[in-house]
């Protein structure tokens, strides 16, 4: 909380960016982790949000908060449309369609340069009318905490159990009377709107939006954060984002090697150790407890055959 007063501007900037990715990773975890619906256009919804907001301000001149709110509503509408169309079937259709959707939106924004500025991007008005990163730091921190709390509330409520059931066994969920399509669309909409919130904040923080934010690189970063941190855990995406972002800043000079290492880590985690950092920590804590003999129950568990 008081960190910004001790750090150089660059690191405050990097931390602010990290909070942006925390919002994206946590909401993608709701969709890809808990619900099991792979949306590959999470970054695109952030881009749609920022572009809608900036274009509204440029073309109509409405105040900033109004354009941000209307861009969130617009994203909700688009995600509702996409969700209704492709979530009626199995999850793989959503992945295929959103992947195509992401590339198409990016190409459209690059091509229609008279309207969207093309590859050059657009100048976005700043949120606090200043380039000083400290107020943005607190803004992003607040929104990141808000997002984490909202997702935690959703996952503890009845809806959270619906979503987990859908991932585990969709047919069983239907048989138990869960309207699977409705809740899948709900999760998709929530995640997309949060992505759009993060995207608009990001656009009004950097002051420049460009089609680069719609690159598949961004999506792969989000997946890397979530998988390394640990899918299907509340703290996993946060831990993953912060640690991987730190590593990325350290290896900043070699961007290709950085991505090669991260991709290898993801493959290794998926292959040998499904669960990421959080699962690793949990097992470590359990082992220490067992060694101290503080928890007699875990001694009993040791006798039972290991579940596969």
């Amino acid at each position, binding site marked *: 909380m008081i960190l910004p007063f001790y750090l150089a501007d660059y690191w405050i900037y990097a931390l602010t960016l990290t909070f942006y990715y925390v919002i994206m990773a946590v909401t993608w975890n709701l969709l890809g982790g808990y619900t099991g619906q792979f949306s590959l256009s999470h970054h695109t919804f952030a881009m749609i949000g920022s572009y809608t907001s900036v274009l509204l301000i440029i073309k109509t001149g409405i105040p900033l908060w109004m354009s941000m709110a209307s861009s969130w509503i617009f994203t909700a509408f688009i995600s509702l449309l996409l969700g209704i*169309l*492709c979530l009626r079937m199995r999850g793989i259709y959503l992945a295929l*369609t959103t992947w195509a959707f992401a*590339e198409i939106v990016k190409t459209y924004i690059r091509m229609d340069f008279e309207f969207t500025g093309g590859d050059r991007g657009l100048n976005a008005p700043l949120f606090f009318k200043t380039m000083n990163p400290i107020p943005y730091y607190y803004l992003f921190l607040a929104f990141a905490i808000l997002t984490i709390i909202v997702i935690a509330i959703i996952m503890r409520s009845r809806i959270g159990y619906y979503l987990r059931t859908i991932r585990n066994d969709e047919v069983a969920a239907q048989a138990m009377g869960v309207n699977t399509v409705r809740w899948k669309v709900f999760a998709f909409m929530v995640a997309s709107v949060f992505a759009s919130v993060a995207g608009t904040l990001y656009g009004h923080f950097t002051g420049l939006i460009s089609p680069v934010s719609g690159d598949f690189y961004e999506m792969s970063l989000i997946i890397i954060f979530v998988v390394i941190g640990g899918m299907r855990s509340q703290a996993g995406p946060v831990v993953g984002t912060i640690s991987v972002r730190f590593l990325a800043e350290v290896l900043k000079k070699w961007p290709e090697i950085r*991505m090669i290492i991260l*991709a290898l880590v993801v493959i290794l985690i998926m292959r040998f150790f499904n669960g990421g950092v959080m699962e690793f920590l949990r097992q470590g804590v359990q082992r220490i407890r067992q060694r101290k003999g503080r928890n007699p129950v875990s001694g009993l568990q040791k006798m039972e055959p290991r579940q596969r």
Partner: protein
Amino acid sequence: MQFLISGIIMGVLYCLMSLGVNFIYGIMKVINWAIGEFFMIGAYVQYLLIVTVLGPRYWYIGVFIVAFCTFFLGAFVQKILIKPMFVGMVEEKTEYATIVTIAMAILFRNLAIFIGGPYIYTPPDYAPPTRIGPLPLSGNNFIAFIGTIAILALFFYFLKRTWIGKAFQAVSQNRSGVLTAGIDVLKFDMIAFGIGTALAGAGGALLAPVILVYPLCGVIPTVRGFEIIVIGGLGSIPGVLVAGLSIGIAESLGAAFINPSFVDIYGFGLLMLILLIKPYGLFGKPERSV
């Protein structure tokens, strides 16, 4: 009429791409997200072969070598990374395969930048410009068209007439049923993955002078490939042909009559329309659950 012809030519080229993905999906029920990267690897290898050893006149030998290489690369990757998704030969973990192949795509892209740099390489032309009837056509497009048709014909002959092809059809219908008939499903998975990546690699080699060779050259064909799969229906081979042709025609008609700079959007519009009318694609069936 000439829009129709150029649409058909582009459509056939797109078919090759999505056929690889769809064949793998049919057998293993896995989407290979790294297929565009195999396409890219094929294009790079072909460029290297043509520039150093073969020369542009023997491009067809290059295509065979590339298909061979990508087949083994794909089979190797499947054996090491994708196979563990099958617990007890039949049960599958789709999520695992999705994340692993996406990570693989990132890995290959950055390896390509790391090794070859972010430059665009232009291979020499395969053939001089020709014309079909009234339509002037670049020799590269023509050769890619002919080559794709040849590969498709070969693939269909393999699938419909040979014993192994029939075994593949059986595997795609019922994995556990085929196990009782004495077919080693896991081995067939590996070969199927290899064939799918070999199709993509051969496509990359054929299209190298059209699309040019750079680290992201597989992305646009892959987008088309996935659109085709959803339109045609997951796992349906005839669906691929129909959907590929219709996307090619829709794009060239849209470019001719509406606006040529938004070519990429027409295919997606078609996809949305199909999803609205027939959610499982033109030839797809609702999958059996349980």
